[in-house]
Structure formats: structure tokens, C-alpha cells
């Protein structure tokens, strides 16, 4: 047991070797003056900048603003995508009415709508939330519909023969069967969510991490620009890890998620 534990910790540690080495080399090259401060500040400088912004409260305010936009956009876009995905997966009629239209809209890159969105909503919250919602809609919609469609027809027939009601059939057969595919959509959507937010906040915002980076650029504060990038990366990683945890918890029956 303890040997197993130690091996596990070791495996956990190995994945950190490379990032730590890169940062160490980066710090070293900065310290000896090989990388000019104006091009890329040292890791220590970035951490220091982060610490100062943290103390002034600016960092947390901006992170909260960005986080809020991301979540609201995800809930709205993801919610609509999930509902339509369910409807079009379960009902052929609904699919006939909606699907080809949605597939057409899908071919518009949602970031191409930024000028239009600024015209509609200005640069207030609605604009960013709208863009995030549109961005996350499609991966969730498509994967939900695909998941429902691919539920094993034999299991559905089994449900019928055992007298399951339509509601039971949905909760006990269709939804759990579609869940692996829905999670694929969710994790894909999370990536799009941050990407959309980064672009939207750098172009049209007066708060948020992206805005913080753009402002720092005007004053040539390279350390804060780099800090913003690092924070985006960390938030992205955090969201993905949470989604993985949720996936693991919900799909513990799935052979791919079974330990040992």
C-alpha cells in the first residue's frame, strides 16, 4: 500500500520536472541578462508584479470579472446547446426543423461577429457574455445530440420490454448513455470559452484580465502582460481539471475511468 502510494507520488512529481526546469532556465537566462527585461521579464519579476496587483486588489477584481463572464456565458450557451441537443437527439421532427439551420450558422466563426456585437451591445458585459455563449453553444449542442443518437438501441429496447416510462427511459438509459459524449463537448467548450474571452477582452472591454493586459501594454509593463497570459493559462487548466474530476465522478462505471 505505502509502496503504491510512493510510486503514485513519484508519478505525480515527474510531470512537474519539465515545467520547473523551463522556469529555472528562464530565470537563469534573465538573471545573467541574456533575455532583456523589455522583451521577457524574469519569472521572479512576473511573480512580483502579480503580488503587487494582488495587494492592490486589482488582480482579484479583474479575475473575478473574467470568471463571471466565462461562467455566465457557459451556462447560457451551454444550457441552450444542451437542451437543443437533447431535443434534436430524441426527436426526429425537432431535428428536421432545426438541425440544418444550426449547421449553417455553425460555419460562421463566432469571433468574426465581434464588430457586429460591438455595434449591438457596445463594450459592456452583454457583448462578452454573448460571444462566449455563442462559442460554447456548438460543441455542447453537437456532442449532446451525437451522444443521444448513439445510445445503444438494444438498451432502449430492453427498457421498453421492462416497461420503463418515457421519463425513466430518459433518466436511466438515454442521458447516462450520452454522458461520455456530453463531457467531450463540455471540455471542448471550456477551451473555446477562454479563447473567446481572451479575444473579446483584449478588443472590447474596460475590465477583466484581457483588459489588464492591454492597459499594461500601453504603459510597456511587460511583466503584467506576461502575468495575464499566465493567469489565462492557469484558469484554463483549472477549468479543465474540474471538468475531468466531474467526468471521473459521473462516469465511474465507464471502463476507461476504472482504476487498477
Amino acid at each position: 500500500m505505502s509502496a503504491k502510494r510512493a510510486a503514485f507520488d513519484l508519478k505525480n512529481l515527474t510531470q512537474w520536472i519539465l515545467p520547473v526546469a523551463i522556469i529555472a532556465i528562464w530565470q537563469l537566462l534573465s538573471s545573467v541578462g541574456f533575455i532583456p527585461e523589455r522583451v521577457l521579464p524574469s519569472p521572479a519579476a512576473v511573480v512580483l508584479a502579480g503580488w503587487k496587483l494582488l495587494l492592490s486588489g486589482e488582480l482579484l477584481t479583474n479575475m473575478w470579472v473574467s470568471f463571471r463572464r466565462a461562467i455566465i456565458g457557459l451556462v447560457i450557451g451551454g444550457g441552450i446547446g444542451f437542451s437543443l441537443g437533447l431535443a434534436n437527439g430524441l426527436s426526429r421532427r425537432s431535428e428536421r426543423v432545426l438541425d440544418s439551420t444550426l449547421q449553417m450558422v455553425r460555419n460562421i466563426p463566432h469571433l468574426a461577429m465581434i464588430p457586429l456585437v460591438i455595434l449591438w451591445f457596445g463594450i459592456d458585459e452583454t457583448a462578452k457574455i454573448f460571444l462566449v455563449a455563442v462559442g460554447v453553444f456548438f460543441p455542447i449542442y453537437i456532442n449532446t445530440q451525437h451522444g443521444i443518437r448513439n445510445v445503444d438501441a438494444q438498451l432502449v429496447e430492453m427498457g421498453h420490454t421492462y416497461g420503463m416510462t418515457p421519463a425513466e427511459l430518459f433518466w436511466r438509459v438515454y442521458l447516462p448513455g450520452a454522458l461520455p459524449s456530453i463531457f467531450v463537448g463540455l471540455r471542448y467548450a471550456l477551451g473555446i470559452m477562454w479563447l473567446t474571452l481572451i479575444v473579446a477582452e483584449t478588443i472590447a472591454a474596460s475590465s477583466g484580465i484581457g483588459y489588464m493586459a492591454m492597459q499594461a501594454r500601453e504603459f510597456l509593463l511587460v511583466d503584467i502582460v506576461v502575468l495575464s497570459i499566465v493567469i489565462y493559462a492557469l484558469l484554463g487548466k483549472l477549468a479543465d481539471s474540474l471538468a475531468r474530476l466531474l467526468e471521473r465522478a459521473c462516469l465511474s462505471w465507464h471502463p476507461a475511468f476504472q482504476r487498477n
Partner: protein
Amino acid sequence: MNTRVEIPSIQRETLKPAARPIAGLPIQVEGLKKSFGDNEVLRGLEFEINAGEFIAIVGRSGCGKSTLLRLLVGLDAATGGSFRIGDDEPNAVDRDQVRVMFQEPRLLPWASVLANVEVGLGAQRRSPDGRRRALDTLQRVGLLERRAEWPSVLSGGQKQRVALSRALVSRPRVLAFDEPLGALDALTRISMQRLLEQVWADQGFTALLVTHDVAEAVTLADRVLVIEDGRISLDLRIDLPRPRERGSADVAALEGRILRELFKNARAGDDA
């Protein structure tokens, strides 16, 4: 662990027909027809099944065995003729009295073994003793200690036993099997055959077994029906005492007779 074979011991006394309650329902089939487009699969089947009888249905691949079973359990509608189960309306199937088991176990991968068995309670799932009955049935098939596990970690034979307890838990009066042992290895097959015979003897349901294995049909059934060209071409009573020895002379003789019937028709089919 994976292919562990647990051969249940047969309690011989329970196999005497007199010792068991007749819970099964009789089935009458009259001129039953089923076509898929121009393809006439069943062309007017006529037969009767007594309450609690064990019937095996054999025939060449594609002769319509599965089709017949699907009609009798209410998964498809006949294109002509009728059948009647017990005192029910013609062509009506009472979902809680009639259960079916397929070659694939069809377990919900996201439900525990026990939860899968509880699916079988059907309309009785809210009854207070449902859980206890599910546990009893699992014990019956020797899988009580695996009740909390996911189906994916079970072997093929164990999965089929879970599917069997799911079919049994509502105490059905007709149980239809479509090649339930078709995907199992020879040893597991034999132990499953004994288990089937035993639960049938205990519970007295009417059993309809579709199988490719003529020896299996002869060892288990009271009567073997051979389907050929959409009709019953042979209706053979098997009057051997139970439990029957697979490979014994009596079994082999009847097996040979059924095979000759199938082979004769097969040759006729090839010539046509």
C-alpha cells in the same frame, strides 16, 4: 476470476414436475404470419404450448426464430393470424408476465449489478420488498456478493446470469430466450443450461428457448419445434427423464432425428 464457472448443483427432487407450482401460462398460436416488405418470414404458424412447458425452437439461420419470439413478447406486431397468452386478449402481451432474454445481456453499464436486476421489477419496482427480491434472485444465480459492482467487470457468463435474474425477479409466467447462451464458452454453457433448467423447475414458468444447439434443445425441452419455410416442420416431444445427460444415447438419438430433419430441408433449400 474472469471465466470462473460455478456449476450449480441440481436438486433432483425439485425437477419432478409434480413438486412444483404451475405458474406458467399456456400459449395458443393460430396462423401467425409476419412479413418484412415482400419477405414472408412466418407463413402461418400453428401450435399450442401448455402451461409451464419448456419449448425449444430450432431452425436454420434466418428462418424466423427471433422474429417469432419478438412477436410473442410484444416487440413487433404480426402481419396476420394471432396468438393468445393465457386469458389475455389475442395478440396482447402483459409486459409484467412475459419476459425475454437475448444473446447479449443488455445490462445498463452505468447501473450496479443489483440496480440492473431491479430494472426487472418493472411495474412492481415500488413494492416494498422489491430490493429483497432482487437480492434473492441474485443469490439464486450465485452473484449476490457481486451486487455492488459494475457490469463491465463481470465475465460473459456472469453478465448473462445477471440478465437472467433481471428476467426472473418479477416472477414472470412466460420467459422467452433468444440464444441466451450463444456467446458463451462450452463449459459456461453447460452450467448455464443447468441453471436454466433448475429455475424453470422451481418457478414453473412457460419457457420458450430459441437455440442453434440441437443438443441443448433436446437436453432442456419438453418439446422441440423446428421451423422451416415459415412453418412448423417438426413438433417433437422429448419424453426423457430429467436431468438429462448431454451425450447419452437417448439424447443423441433424438438429436440425430432433428438434425436429419434440418439437413433434409437444408438440402432441399440448396436445390431450389
